[in-house]
């Protein structure tokens, strides 16, 4: 048996032994997701047990090095783990922006000291991070950043306001972009790590059209940020005034992540499930709507193939570096279309906002939520600009 097959067998066995049945159920709502952090509580013992087993095994961040709390899996092993987990429907033991965003940034730009401290905290779900990029008046345009950090020798005094900080109200720390050199557009930004319990740091949730508030406004009012959190643990990632490089790297990484969802349910074919739905409601799908579903399924299944192709190319070091931008554009537009069609099939029932039958208006709230897909993490327009410039090499793009 090849190494990888041995690994698959072991992984299967370990998952069978350690993933409680409850953790193999599909996620119903946010409370089923464990985000970690100082104030985190477990919904039930199963969630706790599954999380702790994964921490011990390094499976909260399987491909991170062991010394930072990971399991040090290589690409092939990581893929096997993903496959086996999805095969048994195992939930993710820990979701966090630390894993998805700060982690990768630290792995690339962090000092040894930062890695030791922050990566381990993240892997063990001890600290919950949030991201502070956007500001009022600067949406996709990060360069017009206003939040300012004044150099006071051994510390910064940071003043400014961030928006679209996901779950900032629940986060312990924030990694954010701070202007530390006013005269230097790109090279005057520092990627700064701030403890949100510091005085002057406050948050205010933003109510969305979906009725939910996953995002906050975050206010930084004379926040004192030490330049160092200890031996070899500077408060910034990368060099001072070089935060732009880190942010650019992360944005790219983020888009890869989002585009990586190509294969997932959110872009798969929907016609069959819609047919089942109307079977229940006693409606029949209008012939013209059926045709739209058919055209959508063609696009969705084709897109799924591209997601798979791109993942394979990435692993093989092929594939255009700007490809994630294209997948971000196409994937999010497809998902918006998908929910428009689901709403149409659902008819008046799917318009309900608070009814039990729709578990609190899930169809309409999800539909509205998807409208942000093509705005957050770089708008579709930005993605198209990037494709024009970096892939098609069009003049002045």
């Amino acid at each position, binding site marked *: 048996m090849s190494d990888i097959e041995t690994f698959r067998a072991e992984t299967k066995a370990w998952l069978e032994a350690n993933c409680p049945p409850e953790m193999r159920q599909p996620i119903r709502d946010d409370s089923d997701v464990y985000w970690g952090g100082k104030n985190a509580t477990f919904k039930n013992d199963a969630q706790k047990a599954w999380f702790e087993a994964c921490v011990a095994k390094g499976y909260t961040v399987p491909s991170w090095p062991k010394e930072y709390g990971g399991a040090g899996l290589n690409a092939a092993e990581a893929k096997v783990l993903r496959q086996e987990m999805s095969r048994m429907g195992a939930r993710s033991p820990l979701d966090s922006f630390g894993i998805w965003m700060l982690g990768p940034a630290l792995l690339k730009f962090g000092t040894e000291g930062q890695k030791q401290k922050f990566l381990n905290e993240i892997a063990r779900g001890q600290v919950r991070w949030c991201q502070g990029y956007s500001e009022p008046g600067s949406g996709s345009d990060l360069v017009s950043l206003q939040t300012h950090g004044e150099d006071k020798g051994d510390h910064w005094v940071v003043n400014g306001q961030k928006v679209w900080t996901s779950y900032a109200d629940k986060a312990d720390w924030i990694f954010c972009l701070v202007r530390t050199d006013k005269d230097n557009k790109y090279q005057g930004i520092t990627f700064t790590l701030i403890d949100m319990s510091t005085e002057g740091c406050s948050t205010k949730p933003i109510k969305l*059209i979906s009725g939910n508030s996953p995002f906050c406004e975050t206010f930084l009012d004379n926040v004192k940020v030490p330049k160092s959190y200890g031996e070899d643990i500077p408060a910034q990632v990368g060099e001072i005034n070089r935060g732009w490089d880190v942010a650019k790297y992360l944005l790219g990484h983020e888009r890869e992540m989002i585009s990586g969802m190509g294969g997932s349910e959110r872009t798969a074919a929907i016609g069959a499930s819609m047919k089942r739905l109307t079977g229940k409601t006693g409606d029949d799908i209008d012939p*013209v709507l059926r045709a739209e579903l058919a055209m959508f399924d063609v696009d969705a299944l084709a897109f799924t193939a591209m997601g798979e192709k791109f993942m394979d190319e990435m692993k093989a070091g092929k594939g255009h570096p700007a490809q994630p931008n294209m997948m971000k554009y196409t994937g999010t537009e497809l998902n918006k279309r998908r929910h428009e069609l689901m709403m149409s099939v659902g008819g*008046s029932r799917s*318009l309900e906002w608070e009814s039990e039958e729709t578990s609190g208006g899930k169809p309409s709230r999800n539909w509205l939520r998807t409208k942000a897909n093509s705005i957050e993490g770089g708008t579709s327009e930005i993605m198209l600009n990037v494709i024009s410039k970096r892939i098609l090499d069009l003049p002045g793009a």
Partner: protein
Amino acid sequence: MPLFHTEDQAMLAETASGFMADEGNIAKQLRHWRDRDCPDGFGHALWKQMAEMGFTGMLLDEEDGGLGMGHVEAGIVLEEIGRNLTPSPFLTSSVLAATALKHGSSDMKGRYLPGLIEGESVFAVAIDETAKHKPSRITTKAEKSGNGFKLSGSKSFVIQGASSDMIVVAARTSGADDDDEGITLFAVPKDAAGMEQNPVRLVDSSVASHITFDGVELDGDAVIGEVDGGRDVLNAVLSAGRLGAAAEGVGVARGAMDMTIDYLKQRKQFGKLIGEFQGLQHRASHLYSEVEIARAAVIKAQQLADAGAESADLMTSVAKAKVAKAASLAVREGVQMHGGIGMTDEYDIGLYMKRDRALSEFLGDAYFHANRVAEMSGY
């Protein structure tokens, strides 16, 4: 008849536009009632004001105390309602129910019309029985009992049903579920024994009822028009309602478009007004074109209907479908072009998106009406 408003109609438009902007605007009405979780989803005071403006009975005949106006005029009021997202009983009571009541006995008119005209009463219409519009299928049964009827079955998506004093119900008095014949319309009072309403809030903050009829006893004088001959009345109600919804949809589309175009002229990114980017300019221009085409389809359909032309029905479905497509484009582009703030509840553009959804679904969406156009065209 030229395809634009007469002087009288232009004057009405001006009046309606001023009134709705002042009294029916989003802050004063939609947000006000929504944020108070109002079980009606609209304000009765405004309904009274609309009566004083003469809107409530505009479609009714003059001998019935109405203004004897047509679909063009009703559409003028509805476009302003759409533009301001004004919640009100106008579409259901003054257009749908009123069209039904025009076919009622003088006795029935006497019972219901004064209240409507004075803005005292609110009426609803119960047609659909499943989540998708399908008026060809009516399964709710009304069986003869004594010199009256016994109503059993269920209806869904009854807008403002729980706020209504009377509900016009399309029921089957003979024939099979999908028969054209054998339909009868009934005026069911809100307190009718055996009628149970389950009102639910919709995405656009309006409230619609699921209604079950468990052997509801009705007198013979609850019948609107002829027993078993209700299909024609129902079709008249549907046409009026679809024309009205299309007109309101044009208002929604234009409201969303206008606020988006304004935004393109204010919002800066990368040191430029975003309206300077040709990518957005071309999309905005395309949007403008689609909305203008939808507008033309609506006034054409309204005029044909007012003239009683044979082609009115086809053009009504064309208008309903075209408006649904154009308005959907308007709200989707609106939210996207607003970017992040477009996703916040604080901004109005999202409210347009929500209203568009509910309005397009009402009385048949773009797919339903496109299919209807094909069927009416013989393919």
